[in-house]
């Protein structure tokens, strides 16, 4: 069982190397637009996550994305970072059951606890692939860090679908788009297996925000950016302190150095 796989790997490695050495690798994803740069709340050296947007984004993830995409590195308890109380987290997960073993050692579901990681929509990767035309939907835990242009790409992808009847004949020809294919402006190669996941009023926000497609996309991107790097605010806060300290120390060191060298110049 292992051998053909090993051979495939050896061959593909050799091909990759030969291609690199002879300069014949061509990037398959021709003509993909860069997603437009948006203004994000978490940008810049002092940027923070917009808690309200991230909470709405959690709702979008839970009601829409979670049907296919896992978020396996995030635990329910982490949601308290977004401003939820422990009791709110407990009530959010009260209807969720997760697979475990019972006291007899037999597989059995039990109610989810805050310490559990987000429940995966499929039992394993093979099941996820089988339910999705042969390819498992990617886990979203670090998706914002795992794509070039990060949050702009995720937002662009979620809002970048072009319906078949809006495509130009050249696009249809160049990318060989069929009537039931999904065409996305920002996806490498344009043809994407995922149907447009968001639509106006796909979710109903409790805070009264109007759930347009763009709003949902922005909110879920904010949530996924947080999921990719929950400690970002701590990182930036620490950074400001460290750099201020180092600047002061540099000034002091420079003064000391001047004094020490005073008689040598």
């Amino acid at each position: 069982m292992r051998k053909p796989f090993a051979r495939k790997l050896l061959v593909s490695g050799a091909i990759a190397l030969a291609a690199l050495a002879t300069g014949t690798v061509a990037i398959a994803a021709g003509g993909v637009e860069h997603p437009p740069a948006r203004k994000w709340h978490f940008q810049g050296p002092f940027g923070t996550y917009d808690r309200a947007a991230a909470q709405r984004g959690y709702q979008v993830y839970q009601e829409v994305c979670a049907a296919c995409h896992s978020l396996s590195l995030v635990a329910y308890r982490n949601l308290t970072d977004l401003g939820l109380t422990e009791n709110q987290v407990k009530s959010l997960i009260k209807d969720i059951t997760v697979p475990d073993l019972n006291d007899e050692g037999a597989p059995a579901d039990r109610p989810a606890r805050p310490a559990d990681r987000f429940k995966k929509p499929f039992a394993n990767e093979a099941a996820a692939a089988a339910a999705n035309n042969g390819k498992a939907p990617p886990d979203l835990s670090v998706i914002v860090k795992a794509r070039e242009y990060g949050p702009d790409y995720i937002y662009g992808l979620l809002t970048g679908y072009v319906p078949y009847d809006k495509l130009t004949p050249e696009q249809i020809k160049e990318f060989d788009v069929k009537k039931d294919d999904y065409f996305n402006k920002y996806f490498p190669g344009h043809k994407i297996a995922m149907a447009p996941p968001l639509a106006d009023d796909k979710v109903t926000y409790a805070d009264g925000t109007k759930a347009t497609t763009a709003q949902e996309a922005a909110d879920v991107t904010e949530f996924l950016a947080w999921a990719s790097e929950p400690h970002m605010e701590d990182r930036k806060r620490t950074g400001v302190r460290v750099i201020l300290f180092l600047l002061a120390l540099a000034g002091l060191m420079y003064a000391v150095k001047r004094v020490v060298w005073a008689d040598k110049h």
Partner: protein
Amino acid sequence: MASSHGTPPVFNNKVISWIDHRLPIFSYIEKEYHTFPTPRNFNYFWNFGAIATVMLVLMIATGIVLATNYTPHVLMAFDAVERIDRDVPQGWLIRDLHMNGASFFFIAVYIHIFRGMYYGSYKAPRELLWILGVVIFLLMMATAFMGYVLPWGQMSFWGATVITNLFSAIPVVGESIVTWLWGGFAVDNPTLNRFFALHYLLPFIIVAVVALHVVALHVHGSNNPTGIDVKGPQDTVPFHPYYTMKDGFGVICFLIVFAGFVFFAPDYLGHPDNYIPANPMVTPAHIVPEWYFLPFYAILRAIPDKLGGVLAMFGAIAVLFVLPWLDTSRVRSCTFRPIYKWFMMLLVVDVIVLGICGSKPPEGFWVPLSQLATLYYFAHFLVLLPILGKIERPLPLPPSIADSVLKKKAV
């Protein structure tokens, strides 16, 4: 001259005196790091040895902490790194320091190498000092490469696949060597395990070679921006406090830039694909190594033949070993070499061009450009350097270091 300086120190503290009489570590520190006569005319380029040392210590310290929280297994490594980031207290800080520390270690060492080349520090009697430095550079490259494999992302996996496959270019035994390196028939768990073991081992070998590098340095003392030898006490200052304080200032300035990346752009120098778990069945569209390998990667790809590319890439480093004998000029410092100075600058531009070529897909205009830049790289060392020493007329050298310092002050 440097080895016989000063009188033996007298220690007032009885414990120190007792120990030093039996194991002269305090005398050693006194002699090599306090009274050690050091040229008085260093510029800030001479900070980078100290900076590189600080980065080495930082990498080992953060690395040991990371190792205590890491699991070298193909099914767990990616999540283990994320777990350090998410769940280990201040784990994100340790990891960001370590992964950006690698880049900044290379930045420091590249500047240190440039300093050595520009001011001719590799020339007699410092050839072995230089060669030990190149050995450190090679060990760093091996360590960094194996470290990049450990998070087991897509670039980890495919970088490991491409680089280990290089050895299959060796005639006859190549395939067997690759199998031996992998510990199997593919990059898999045995590969990850041995890379982890070696990634932990090599830094300590680097420490040992650094120690030899420092021993060799302290035989004849440091070179200096004029490249002329120390002629007497008027040319030097004691290492402490003059250079401890100046190095301290330089180290802090370097750390400010480093902290800027660690805290405000920790992933800027990395590749997004390495946040995708390794998948042997999916090849990334564009496999690139870390930025500090890009010039050598460009040289590898510039040669349209696998074995030729591998030889050129290793040759690009091998040529550094014989640099002291390729340079025929008797003048060390580029300050007094009016022609070579510009070729040295051109070499820097050439290496940067190679780096840019290495980051681009090998197609169109980038292929001939990287071939041209590769050709120039080797021509610099193998043609220009030997010839220039013969035909170039150096500027008059100052009579002494002290003289050059005092004259500068008078102007």
